[in-house]
Protein backbone atom coordinates (compact mmCIF):
# COMPACT_ATOMS: atom_id res chain seq x y z
CA UNK A 1 0.00 0.00 0.00
CA UNK A 2 1.33 3.43 -0.79
CA UNK A 3 1.11 6.49 1.30
CA UNK A 4 -1.57 8.09 -0.81
CA UNK A 5 -3.75 4.98 -0.79
CA UNK A 6 -3.52 4.91 2.93
CA UNK A 7 -4.33 8.57 3.16
CA UNK A 8 -7.01 9.19 0.65
CA UNK A 9 -9.38 7.92 -1.95
CA UNK A 10 -9.25 9.04 -4.70
CA UNK A 11 -5.51 8.65 -4.83
CA UNK A 12 -4.60 12.26 -4.32
CA UNK A 13 -2.87 13.40 -1.17
CA UNK A 14 -4.68 16.32 0.44
CA UNK A 15 -2.71 19.49 -0.09
CA UNK A 16 -1.34 21.04 3.09
CA UNK A 17 -1.25 17.57 4.59
CA UNK A 18 1.36 17.15 7.29
CA UNK A 19 2.14 13.59 6.14
CA UNK A 20 5.91 13.16 6.18
CA UNK A 21 7.33 12.42 2.76
CA UNK A 22 8.15 8.69 2.42
CA UNK A 23 6.44 7.93 5.68
CA UNK A 24 5.75 4.24 6.25
CA UNK A 25 2.20 3.44 5.35
CA UNK A 26 0.62 3.17 8.74
CA UNK A 27 -2.58 4.69 9.96
CA UNK A 28 -0.61 6.77 12.45
CA UNK A 29 1.22 8.49 9.64
CA UNK A 30 -1.91 9.66 7.91
CA UNK A 31 -2.42 13.27 8.89
CA UNK A 32 -5.46 15.29 7.96
CA UNK A 33 -4.98 18.48 5.93
CA UNK A 34 -4.28 21.47 8.09
CA UNK A 35 -7.34 23.49 7.23
CA UNK A 36 -10.47 23.68 5.19
CA UNK A 37 -10.29 20.46 3.22
CA UNK A 38 -12.06 17.36 4.37
CA UNK A 39 -9.83 14.75 6.02
CA UNK A 40 -9.78 11.32 4.49
CA UNK A 41 -7.68 9.59 7.14
CA UNK A 42 -9.15 6.50 8.75
CA UNK A 43 -10.37 7.26 12.25
CA UNK A 44 -7.71 6.66 14.91
CA UNK A 45 -8.89 5.05 18.10
CA UNK A 46 -8.77 7.41 21.03
CA UNK A 47 -7.76 5.59 24.17
CA UNK A 48 -8.34 8.49 26.50
CA UNK A 49 -11.29 7.97 28.77
CA UNK A 50 -12.61 10.17 31.56
CA UNK A 51 -11.22 9.18 34.98
CA UNK A 52 -8.51 7.01 33.42
CA UNK A 53 -4.88 7.97 33.13
CA UNK A 54 -3.08 6.91 29.99
CA UNK A 55 0.40 5.99 31.20
CA UNK A 56 3.27 7.92 29.68
CA UNK A 57 5.18 4.77 28.77
CA UNK A 58 2.46 3.58 26.38
CA UNK A 59 3.38 4.84 22.96
CA UNK A 60 1.03 2.97 20.67
CA UNK A 61 -1.64 0.30 20.32
CA UNK A 62 -1.46 -3.00 18.53
CA UNK A 63 -4.43 -4.83 17.03
CA UNK A 64 -4.38 -8.50 18.03
CA UNK A 65 -6.80 -11.44 18.06
CA UNK A 66 -7.52 -10.65 21.70
CA UNK A 67 -8.14 -6.95 21.15
CA UNK A 68 -5.96 -3.87 21.24
CA UNK A 69 -2.81 -4.18 23.31
CA UNK A 70 -0.72 -1.25 24.52
CA UNK A 71 2.77 -0.99 23.06
CA UNK A 72 5.24 0.28 25.64
CA UNK A 73 8.35 2.36 24.98
CA UNK A 74 11.77 0.72 25.19
CA UNK A 75 13.28 3.88 26.63
CA UNK A 76 12.49 5.41 29.99
CA UNK A 77 11.12 8.92 30.05
CA UNK A 78 11.68 11.57 32.69
CA UNK A 79 8.71 10.48 34.79
CA UNK A 80 10.04 6.91 34.86
CA UNK A 81 13.50 8.12 35.92
CA UNK A 82 12.16 10.37 38.63
CA UNK A 83 9.99 7.55 39.96
CA UNK A 84 13.01 5.29 40.19
CA UNK A 85 14.97 7.72 42.33
CA UNK A 86 11.97 8.50 44.53
CA UNK A 87 11.42 4.78 45.12
CA UNK A 88 14.97 4.31 46.34
CA UNK A 89 14.30 6.89 49.03
CA UNK A 90 11.06 5.25 50.03
CA UNK A 91 8.70 7.85 48.56
CA UNK A 92 5.43 6.30 47.49
CA UNK A 93 6.93 2.85 47.59
CA UNK A 94 3.64 1.11 48.28
CA UNK A 95 1.92 2.36 45.16
CA UNK A 96 4.51 1.92 42.48
CA UNK A 97 2.67 -0.42 40.20
CA UNK A 98 1.63 -0.91 36.61
CA UNK A 99 -1.74 -2.37 35.73
CA UNK A 100 -1.60 -6.17 35.27
CA UNK A 101 -2.26 -7.37 31.74
CA UNK A 102 -0.55 -7.96 28.42
CA UNK A 103 1.78 -5.36 26.92
CA UNK A 104 3.71 -5.38 23.68
CA UNK A 105 7.28 -4.27 23.10
CA UNK A 106 7.92 -3.48 19.44
CA UNK A 107 5.75 -5.44 17.02
CA UNK A 108 5.46 -8.97 18.42
CA UNK A 109 3.58 -11.67 16.49
CA UNK A 110 2.14 -15.08 17.29
CA UNK A 111 5.64 -16.57 17.48
CA UNK A 112 7.03 -13.91 19.81
CA UNK A 113 8.17 -14.79 23.31
CA UNK A 114 5.95 -14.15 26.33
CA UNK A 115 7.85 -12.68 29.26
CA UNK A 116 6.26 -12.79 32.68
CA UNK A 117 6.81 -9.80 34.95
CA UNK A 118 5.62 -8.53 38.31
CA UNK A 119 3.52 -5.37 38.33
CA UNK A 120 6.21 -3.54 40.29
CA UNK A 121 7.08 -0.62 38.06
CA UNK A 122 10.84 -0.71 38.63
CA UNK A 123 11.01 -4.34 37.42
CA UNK A 124 8.74 -3.56 34.49
CA UNK A 125 10.88 -0.55 33.51
CA UNK A 126 14.10 -2.56 33.67
CA UNK A 127 12.52 -5.27 31.54
CA UNK A 128 11.26 -3.08 28.71
CA UNK A 129 14.52 -1.17 28.66
CA UNK A 130 16.61 -4.35 28.50
CA UNK A 131 14.98 -6.00 25.51
CA UNK A 132 17.18 -4.33 22.92
CA UNK A 133 15.57 -4.84 19.53
CA UNK A 134 13.57 -7.92 20.57
CA UNK A 135 9.83 -7.86 19.90
CA UNK A 136 7.97 -9.57 22.71
CA UNK A 137 4.85 -9.79 24.79
CA UNK A 138 5.03 -8.96 28.46
CA UNK A 139 2.44 -10.57 30.70
CA UNK A 140 2.34 -8.51 33.88
CA UNK A 141 0.82 -10.41 36.77
CA UNK A 142 -0.62 -8.85 39.88
CA UNK A 143 1.91 -8.94 42.71
CA UNK A 144 0.39 -5.92 44.48
CA UNK A 145 3.24 -3.73 43.26
CA UNK A 146 5.93 -5.86 44.87
CA UNK A 147 9.11 -6.95 43.11
CA UNK A 148 9.55 -10.45 41.73
CA UNK A 149 11.88 -11.75 44.43
CA UNK A 150 9.82 -10.57 47.41
CA UNK A 151 6.54 -11.49 45.74
CA UNK A 152 7.84 -14.97 44.92
CA UNK A 153 8.85 -15.40 48.56
CA UNK A 154 5.35 -14.47 49.63
CA UNK A 155 3.72 -16.56 46.90
CA UNK A 156 1.97 -13.63 45.16
CA UNK A 157 4.28 -14.13 42.20
CA UNK A 158 3.37 -17.75 41.86
CA UNK A 159 2.01 -20.74 40.03
CA UNK A 160 -1.68 -19.94 40.58
CA UNK A 161 -1.43 -16.32 39.49
CA UNK A 162 0.42 -17.27 36.31
CA UNK A 163 -2.17 -19.90 35.41
CA UNK A 164 -4.98 -17.48 36.17
CA UNK A 165 -3.51 -14.72 33.99
CA UNK A 166 -2.71 -17.04 31.09
CA UNK A 167 -6.36 -18.05 31.06
CA UNK A 168 -7.84 -14.64 31.81
CA UNK A 169 -5.94 -12.89 29.02
CA UNK A 170 -6.52 -15.71 26.50
CA UNK A 171 -2.85 -16.22 25.82
CA UNK A 172 -3.54 -19.27 23.67
CA UNK A 173 -5.25 -16.97 21.14
CA UNK A 174 -2.34 -14.55 21.11
CA UNK A 175 0.58 -16.93 20.55
CA UNK A 176 0.96 -20.26 18.80
CA UNK A 177 3.78 -21.61 20.99
CA UNK A 178 3.36 -22.80 24.59
CA UNK A 179 6.26 -21.15 26.36
CA UNK A 180 6.49 -18.61 29.17
CA UNK A 181 9.77 -16.95 30.06
CA UNK A 182 9.69 -16.53 33.83
CA UNK A 183 12.39 -14.52 35.62
CA UNK A 184 14.62 -16.90 37.52
CA UNK A 185 14.18 -14.99 40.76
CA UNK A 186 10.47 -15.76 40.53
CA UNK A 187 11.23 -19.47 40.94
CA UNK A 188 10.66 -19.59 44.73
CA UNK A 189 6.96 -18.96 44.03
CA UNK A 190 6.58 -20.97 40.84
CA UNK A 191 6.44 -24.70 40.29
CA UNK A 192 7.13 -25.25 36.59
CA UNK A 193 5.45 -28.67 36.47
CA UNK A 194 2.28 -27.34 38.10
CA UNK A 195 2.06 -24.42 35.63
CA UNK A 196 2.30 -26.99 32.84
CA UNK A 197 -0.52 -29.02 34.40
CA UNK A 198 -2.63 -25.93 35.03
CA UNK A 199 -2.53 -24.16 31.67
CA UNK A 200 -0.39 -26.28 29.36
CA UNK A 201 2.38 -23.70 29.08
CA UNK A 202 6.01 -24.66 29.68
CA UNK A 203 7.94 -22.49 32.07
CA UNK A 204 11.39 -21.55 30.83
CA UNK A 205 13.44 -19.76 33.46
CA UNK A 206 15.14 -16.67 32.12
CA UNK A 207 18.31 -15.13 33.48
CA UNK A 208 18.45 -13.40 36.87
CA UNK A 209 19.09 -10.00 35.27
CA UNK A 210 16.83 -8.66 32.54
CA UNK A 211 19.91 -7.14 30.86
CA UNK A 212 20.99 -10.66 29.94
CA UNK A 213 17.77 -11.42 28.02
CA UNK A 214 19.12 -10.58 24.55
CA UNK A 215 22.08 -12.94 25.10
CA UNK A 216 19.72 -15.56 26.55
CA UNK A 217 17.61 -15.49 23.39
CA UNK A 218 20.67 -15.49 21.14
CA UNK A 219 21.82 -18.73 22.78
CA UNK A 220 18.47 -20.40 22.17
CA UNK A 221 17.03 -19.65 25.58
CA UNK A 222 20.06 -20.96 27.42
CA UNK A 223 21.48 -18.99 30.33
CA UNK A 224 25.15 -19.27 31.16
CA UNK A 225 25.98 -20.17 34.78
CA UNK A 226 26.90 -16.53 35.41
CA UNK A 227 23.45 -15.40 34.24
CA UNK A 228 21.88 -17.71 36.82
CA UNK A 229 23.71 -16.32 39.85
CA UNK A 230 22.81 -13.43 42.06
CA UNK A 231 25.76 -11.28 42.91
CA UNK A 232 25.96 -8.47 45.32
CA UNK A 233 28.19 -5.83 43.87
CA UNK A 234 29.35 -2.60 45.42
CA UNK A 235 26.74 -0.75 43.38
CA UNK A 236 23.94 -3.09 44.51
CA UNK A 237 24.89 -2.43 48.09
CA UNK A 238 25.17 1.34 47.73
CA UNK A 239 21.79 1.56 46.05
CA UNK A 240 20.23 -0.29 48.96
CA UNK A 241 21.58 1.88 51.76
CA UNK A 242 18.89 4.58 51.56
CA UNK A 243 16.30 1.81 51.79
CA UNK A 244 17.89 0.72 55.04
CA UNK A 245 17.69 4.13 56.62
CA UNK A 246 14.14 4.76 55.49
CA UNK A 247 13.08 1.41 56.97
CA UNK A 248 14.41 2.54 60.34
CA UNK A 249 13.05 6.09 60.28
CA UNK A 250 10.35 5.52 62.87
CA UNK A 251 12.77 3.98 65.33
CA UNK A 252 15.19 6.85 64.67
CA UNK A 253 12.53 9.46 65.40
CA UNK A 254 11.38 7.97 68.71
CA UNK A 255 14.91 7.32 69.88
CA UNK A 256 15.89 10.93 69.14
CA UNK A 257 12.87 12.18 71.06
CA UNK A 258 13.71 10.00 74.05
CA UNK A 259 17.33 11.13 74.02
CA UNK A 260 16.27 14.79 74.06
CA UNK A 261 14.04 14.20 77.08
CA UNK A 262 16.62 12.08 78.92
CA UNK A 263 19.35 14.61 78.11
CA UNK A 264 17.52 17.25 80.11
CA UNK A 265 17.50 15.21 83.32
CA UNK A 266 20.22 16.25 85.75
CA UNK A 267 20.95 17.84 89.10
CA UNK A 268 18.38 20.62 88.45
CA UNK A 269 15.72 17.93 87.74
CA UNK A 270 15.14 19.09 84.16
CA UNK A 271 16.90 21.71 82.10
CA UNK A 272 15.98 22.61 78.56
CA UNK A 273 19.47 23.73 77.65
CA UNK A 274 20.89 20.41 78.90
CA UNK A 275 18.22 18.62 76.89
CA UNK A 276 19.41 20.37 73.77
CA UNK A 277 23.14 20.08 74.41
CA UNK A 278 23.38 16.62 75.98
CA UNK A 279 20.41 15.21 74.12
CA UNK A 280 21.59 16.75 70.88
CA UNK A 281 25.08 15.30 71.16
CA UNK A 282 23.68 11.90 72.05
CA UNK A 283 21.50 12.04 68.91
CA UNK A 284 24.50 13.04 66.83
CA UNK A 285 26.61 10.15 68.11
CA UNK A 286 23.67 7.77 67.70
CA UNK A 287 23.29 8.92 64.12
CA UNK A 288 26.96 8.33 63.44
CA UNK A 289 26.44 4.77 64.68
CA UNK A 290 23.58 4.43 62.23
CA UNK A 291 25.73 5.68 59.36
CA UNK A 292 28.50 3.28 60.39
CA UNK A 293 26.11 0.32 60.42
CA UNK A 294 23.69 1.11 57.61
CA UNK A 295 25.96 2.88 55.11
CA UNK A 296 29.63 2.15 55.75
CA UNK A 297 29.18 -1.52 56.68
CA UNK A 298 27.25 -2.46 53.51
CA UNK A 299 29.82 -0.70 51.34
CA UNK A 300 32.77 -2.45 53.01
CA UNK A 301 30.87 -5.73 53.49
CA UNK A 302 33.23 -8.19 51.78
CA UNK A 303 36.31 -6.75 53.46
CA UNK A 304 35.11 -6.60 57.06
CA UNK A 305 36.22 -9.54 59.21
CA UNK A 306 33.65 -12.11 60.35
CA UNK A 307 30.61 -13.60 58.63
CA UNK A 308 27.85 -12.34 60.90
CA UNK A 309 26.61 -8.90 59.88
CA UNK A 310 26.31 -7.80 63.50
CA UNK A 311 30.02 -8.52 63.91
CA UNK A 312 30.92 -6.59 60.76
CA UNK A 313 28.92 -3.66 62.15
CA UNK A 314 30.98 -3.73 65.34
CA UNK A 315 34.19 -2.95 63.44
CA UNK A 316 32.81 0.08 61.63
CA UNK A 317 31.06 1.27 64.80
CA UNK A 318 34.25 0.98 66.83
CA UNK A 319 36.23 2.81 64.18
CA UNK A 320 33.77 5.70 64.06
CA UNK A 321 33.49 5.83 67.85
CA UNK A 322 37.26 6.02 68.26
CA UNK A 323 37.49 8.75 65.62
CA UNK A 324 34.67 10.73 67.23
CA UNK A 325 35.97 10.20 70.76
CA UNK A 326 39.46 11.29 69.78
CA UNK A 327 38.30 14.51 68.17
CA UNK A 328 35.50 15.51 70.53
CA UNK A 329 36.58 14.22 73.90
CA UNK A 330 40.21 14.78 74.78
CA UNK A 331 40.11 12.87 78.08
CA UNK A 332 40.19 9.34 76.68
CA UNK A 333 38.88 6.68 79.03
CA UNK A 334 36.39 8.99 80.73
CA UNK A 335 32.90 7.74 81.55
CA UNK A 336 31.32 9.63 78.70
CA UNK A 337 33.93 8.22 76.37
CA UNK A 338 33.03 4.66 77.29
CA UNK A 339 29.33 5.46 76.89
CA UNK A 340 29.98 6.85 73.43
CA UNK A 341 31.98 3.81 72.40
CA UNK A 342 29.28 1.40 73.56
CA UNK A 343 26.42 3.39 72.06
CA UNK A 344 27.91 3.89 68.61
CA UNK A 345 29.10 0.29 68.37
CA UNK A 346 25.79 -1.20 69.50
CA UNK A 347 23.76 0.93 67.10
CA UNK A 348 26.13 0.19 64.25
CA UNK A 349 25.96 -3.53 64.96
CA UNK A 350 22.16 -3.45 65.04
CA UNK A 351 21.86 -1.42 61.84
CA UNK A 352 24.33 -3.70 60.07
CA UNK A 353 22.33 -6.74 61.20
CA UNK A 354 19.24 -5.23 59.57
CA UNK A 355 21.08 -5.28 56.28
CA UNK A 356 20.79 -9.09 56.21
CA UNK A 357 17.35 -8.56 54.73
CA UNK A 358 18.74 -6.64 51.78
CA UNK A 359 21.74 -8.86 51.17
CA UNK A 360 21.44 -11.62 48.65
CA UNK A 361 23.19 -14.43 50.43
CA UNK A 362 21.94 -14.73 53.99
CA UNK A 363 19.65 -17.57 55.03
CA UNK A 364 16.77 -17.10 57.49
CA UNK A 365 18.20 -19.84 59.73
CA UNK A 366 21.51 -18.02 59.80
CA UNK A 367 19.97 -14.61 60.50
CA UNK A 368 17.95 -16.04 63.34
CA UNK A 369 21.01 -17.69 64.85
CA UNK A 370 23.00 -14.49 64.53
CA UNK A 371 20.24 -12.43 66.12
CA UNK A 372 19.84 -14.73 69.12
CA UNK A 373 23.41 -13.93 70.07
CA UNK A 374 23.72 -10.36 68.84
CA UNK A 375 20.55 -8.72 70.14
CA UNK A 376 21.15 -9.44 73.85
CA UNK A 377 24.71 -8.11 73.49
CA UNK A 378 23.52 -4.98 71.72
CA UNK A 379 20.85 -4.42 74.36
CA UNK A 380 23.31 -4.79 77.23
CA UNK A 381 25.72 -2.35 75.57
CA UNK A 382 22.97 0.22 75.03
CA UNK A 383 21.67 -0.09 78.59
CA UNK A 384 25.16 0.35 80.06
CA UNK A 385 25.85 3.29 77.71
CA UNK A 386 22.58 4.92 78.69
CA UNK A 387 23.25 4.39 82.41
CA UNK A 388 26.74 5.88 82.18
CA UNK A 389 25.49 8.81 80.16
CA UNK A 390 22.67 9.61 82.62
CA UNK A 391 25.10 9.23 85.51
CA UNK A 392 27.46 11.84 84.07
CA UNK A 393 24.68 14.45 84.35
CA UNK A 394 24.86 14.41 88.17
Amino acid at each position, binding site marked *: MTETENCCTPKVAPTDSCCPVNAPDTVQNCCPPKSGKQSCCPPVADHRKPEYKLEGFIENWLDTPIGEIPVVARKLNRVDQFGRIA*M*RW*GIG*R*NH*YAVAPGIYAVGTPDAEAEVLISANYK*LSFDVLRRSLGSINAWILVIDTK*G*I*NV*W*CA*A*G*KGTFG*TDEIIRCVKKFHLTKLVTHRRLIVP*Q*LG*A*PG*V*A*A*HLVKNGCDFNVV*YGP*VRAQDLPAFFTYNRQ*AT*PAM*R*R*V*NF*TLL*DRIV*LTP*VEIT*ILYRQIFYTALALLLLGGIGSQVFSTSAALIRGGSAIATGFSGLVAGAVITPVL*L*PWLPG*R*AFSLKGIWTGLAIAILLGGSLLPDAGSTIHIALLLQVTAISSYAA*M*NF*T*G*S*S*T*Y*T*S*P*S*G*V*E*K*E*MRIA*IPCQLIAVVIALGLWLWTAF
Partner: protein
Amino acid sequence: MAHQKYLKNVVTLKLEQEKCVGCGLCAIVCPRAVFKIEDDLAWITALDNCMECGACVGNCPVGAITVHAGVGCASAIIHSWLTGDEPSCDCGGGGNC
Protein backbone atom coordinates in the same frame (compact mmCIF):
# COMPACT_ATOMS: atom_id res chain seq x y z
CA MET B 1 33.46 -11.22 42.96
CA ALA B 2 33.45 -14.71 44.37
CA HIS B 3 30.44 -15.77 46.37
CA GLN B 4 30.10 -14.05 49.69
CA LYS B 5 29.63 -16.61 52.40
CA TYR B 6 27.33 -16.50 55.36
CA LEU B 7 27.34 -18.55 58.57
CA LYS B 8 28.46 -22.19 58.37
CA ASN B 9 26.31 -25.23 59.15
CA VAL B 10 23.00 -23.50 59.72
CA VAL B 11 21.20 -24.25 56.47
CA THR B 12 18.18 -26.59 56.60
CA LEU B 13 18.42 -27.81 52.98
CA LYS B 14 18.12 -31.60 52.43
CA LEU B 15 18.20 -33.70 49.27
CA GLU B 16 16.88 -37.27 49.04
CA GLN B 17 18.92 -38.42 46.12
CA GLU B 18 17.05 -41.75 45.78
CA LYS B 19 14.00 -39.84 44.56
CA CYS B 20 15.87 -37.62 42.07
CA VAL B 21 15.10 -38.14 38.37
CA GLY B 22 17.86 -35.83 37.18
CA CYS B 23 15.66 -33.24 35.49
CA GLY B 24 18.18 -30.54 36.38
CA LEU B 25 15.65 -27.89 37.36
CA CYS B 26 17.08 -27.43 40.85
CA ALA B 27 20.41 -26.45 39.35
CA ILE B 28 18.69 -24.05 36.95
CA VAL B 29 16.59 -22.22 39.51
CA CYS B 30 19.16 -21.99 42.30
CA PRO B 31 20.63 -18.49 42.33
CA ARG B 32 23.49 -19.61 44.58
CA ALA B 33 24.95 -22.55 42.63
CA VAL B 34 24.24 -25.01 45.40
CA PHE B 35 23.51 -27.98 43.11
CA LYS B 36 25.46 -29.78 40.46
CA ILE B 37 23.99 -32.39 38.10
CA GLU B 38 26.26 -35.36 37.53
CA ASP B 39 25.48 -38.92 36.42
CA ASP B 40 21.84 -37.82 35.95
CA LEU B 41 21.55 -37.01 39.61
CA ALA B 42 21.48 -33.82 41.65
CA TRP B 43 24.29 -33.28 44.17
CA ILE B 44 24.57 -30.62 46.82
CA THR B 45 28.01 -29.14 46.29
CA ALA B 46 27.90 -25.94 48.32
CA LEU B 47 25.47 -26.34 51.19
CA ASP B 48 26.55 -23.20 53.06
CA ASN B 49 25.82 -21.10 49.98
CA CYS B 50 22.10 -21.83 50.27
CA MET B 51 19.94 -18.88 51.29
CA GLU B 52 16.84 -21.00 51.87
CA CYS B 53 14.75 -19.34 49.16
CA GLY B 54 12.88 -22.53 48.37
CA ALA B 55 13.07 -22.26 44.58
CA CYS B 56 14.57 -25.75 44.23
CA VAL B 57 11.93 -27.31 46.49
CA GLY B 58 8.98 -25.92 44.56
CA ASN B 59 10.37 -26.86 41.18
CA CYS B 60 11.51 -30.39 41.93
CA PRO B 61 8.82 -32.50 40.25
CA VAL B 62 9.37 -35.49 42.56
CA GLY B 63 9.68 -33.74 45.91
CA ALA B 64 13.27 -34.81 46.50
CA ILE B 65 14.30 -31.55 48.20
CA THR B 66 13.24 -29.96 51.46
CA VAL B 67 14.24 -26.71 53.12
CA HIS B 68 12.81 -24.49 55.80
CA ALA B 69 12.31 -21.52 53.47
CA GLY B 70 11.61 -18.05 54.73
CA VAL B 71 12.71 -14.43 54.82
CA GLY B 72 15.99 -13.26 56.26
CA CYS B 73 15.00 -9.74 57.29
CA ALA B 74 16.10 -9.05 60.86
CA SER B 75 13.07 -6.84 61.40
CA ALA B 76 10.72 -9.58 60.22
CA ILE B 77 12.28 -12.06 62.62
CA ILE B 78 12.05 -9.62 65.55
CA HIS B 79 8.41 -9.05 64.64
CA SER B 80 7.79 -12.79 64.66
CA TRP B 81 9.46 -13.14 68.07
CA LEU B 82 7.22 -10.43 69.48
CA THR B 83 3.98 -11.59 67.91
CA GLY B 84 4.51 -15.32 67.45
CA ASP B 85 3.61 -15.08 63.75
CA GLU B 86 5.69 -16.42 60.87
CA PRO B 87 8.36 -13.90 59.84
CA SER B 88 7.02 -11.77 57.02
CA CYS B 89 9.12 -9.21 55.25
CA ASP B 90 7.15 -6.07 54.55
CA CYS B 91 9.21 -5.10 51.57
CA GLY B 92 7.11 -3.01 49.27
CA GLY B 93 10.15 -1.70 47.48
CA GLY B 94 13.85 -2.22 47.39
CA GLY B 95 15.66 -4.35 44.90
CA ASN B 96 16.17 -7.31 47.16
CA CYS B 97 14.39 -7.99 50.38
